[in-house]
């Protein structure tokens, strides 16, 4: 006996009322997945950003959400569909971090600036640019300089890092280990000092080119200048702070106290520093070639420029616990 009594609940067949929770593709004729005031994660380009739903509306059976990206200028607010939104859950936050990590590794950017961009408010950048991911980074210059595209510069910046001589990389890793893991320090003052090393390089260069090369001279002056400023600001490990205060007093310039070990660390930071100069791509490439030449010079003289043993004595205490 077939009967269609009302115990027959509708199971199969029409799925018109199918409510999909998170990602409703196409038409969601039922309820919106998010409501006003909800905190969500929204895709903008390849990355996810925390956002807040300001308004919602239903257009042609589709829900659309007007989102504001947290920490961004409201010029970036926009209407998005469900497919760009994710619920703010731990799992999705992990996804956000993963996307970010992959992106940074892909571009092998060592400059800190570009990854800060997405979180600070932008200065009224043109909405038209928004959809272009690259412009997300481009739009973040603190001053608009004509000419050099930041994305072009990025690829040439990493030249210095990507061609960093291998043995010098190892030197830096050993250096890191001695200081941060083994609690040792480079004995100061060094010989040769940064100043002396740079002078030696200039002499070496003059011999090769059989005349004084003005470009190199200027670059070396620039490096010394950077070194003196950068050393206390960004070239020291925490454990080296006390030593610095001890050894560098008053007018003393760090380039007359420290040596190759710390000079090498400057090279790691150079792309970041040079970004502020906003150089033309050609000039930057030329510069990087020259900087690599200096690194090779350091490498050639590695055994005489660098210490092989770090000091186990800290603060001049007696009884060396070296080795």
């Amino acid at each position: 006996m077939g009967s269609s009594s009302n115990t027959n609940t509708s199971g199969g067949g029409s799925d018109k009322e199918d409510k999909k929770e998170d990602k409703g593709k196409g038409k969601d004729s039922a309820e919106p997945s998010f409501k006003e005031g909800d905190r969500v994660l929204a895709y903008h380009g390849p990355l996810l950003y925390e956002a807040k739903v300001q308004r919602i509306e239903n257009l042609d059976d589709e829900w659309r959400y007007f989102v504001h990206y947290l920490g961004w200028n409201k010029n970036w607010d926009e209407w998005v569909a469900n497919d760009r939104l994710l619920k703010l859950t731990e799992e999705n936050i992990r996804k956000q971090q993963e996307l970010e990590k992959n992106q940074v590794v892909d571009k092998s950017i060592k400059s800190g600036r570009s990854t800060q961009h997405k979180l600070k408010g932008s200065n009224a950048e043109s909405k038209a640019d928004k959809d272009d991911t690259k412009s997300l980074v481009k739009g973040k210059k603190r001053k608009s300089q004509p000419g050099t595209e930041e994305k072009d510069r990025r690829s040439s910046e990493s030249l210095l890092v990507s061609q960093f001589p291998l043995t010098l990389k190892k030197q830096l890793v050993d250096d890191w280990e001695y200081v941060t893991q083994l609690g040792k320090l480079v004995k100061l003052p060094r010989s040769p000092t940064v100043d002396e090393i740079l002078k030696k390089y200039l002499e070496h260069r003059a011999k090769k080119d059989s005349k004084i090369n003005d470009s190199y001279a200027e670059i070396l002056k620039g490096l010394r200048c950077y070194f003196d400023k950068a050393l206390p600001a960004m070239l020291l490990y925490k454990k080296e702070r006390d030593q610095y205060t001890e050894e560098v007093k008053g007018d003393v310039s760090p380039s007359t106290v420290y040596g190759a070990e710390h000079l090498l660390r400057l090279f790691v930071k150079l792309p970041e520093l040079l970004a502020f100069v906003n150089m033309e791509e050609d000039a930057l490439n030329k510069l990087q070639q020259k900087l690599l030449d200096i690194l090779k010079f350091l490498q050639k003289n590695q055994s005489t420029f660098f210490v092989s043993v770090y000091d186990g004595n800290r603060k001049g205490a007696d009884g060396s616990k070296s080795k």
Partner: protein
Amino acid sequence: MDNVESAPDSPVQAPPSSASSLPKEQSQVELELRLLQALEFYPPSKLKGVHRHFVLYGLMEYLRKSLDRQFSADEVLQLLDRFFNLEMLKPEEDEKDNFSQGEEFSLPESFLNKEE
């Protein structure tokens, strides 16, 4: 000798770059024009800060490329002197961002990962 554009007086032999005074023969207009163009990329205000040597390097390169001869740092500075009183320049405010904090040094991940 037909070379670049309009050189009314023919600078047949470019003077050596170590010359401390600029050649009077070079088309003054072109020289100054190129310099002013260069300043779009390398504003004079940056010539006072910690980046000044690299800014100067950038200028030297720019002029070398567009005028096809070596320029010494001094030459470029002299050129600039025609337009600006370099003494009076104030350093950029930007620098405070980079050098004021005592941020700890750290190696990029890729360096540490090289260890097998």
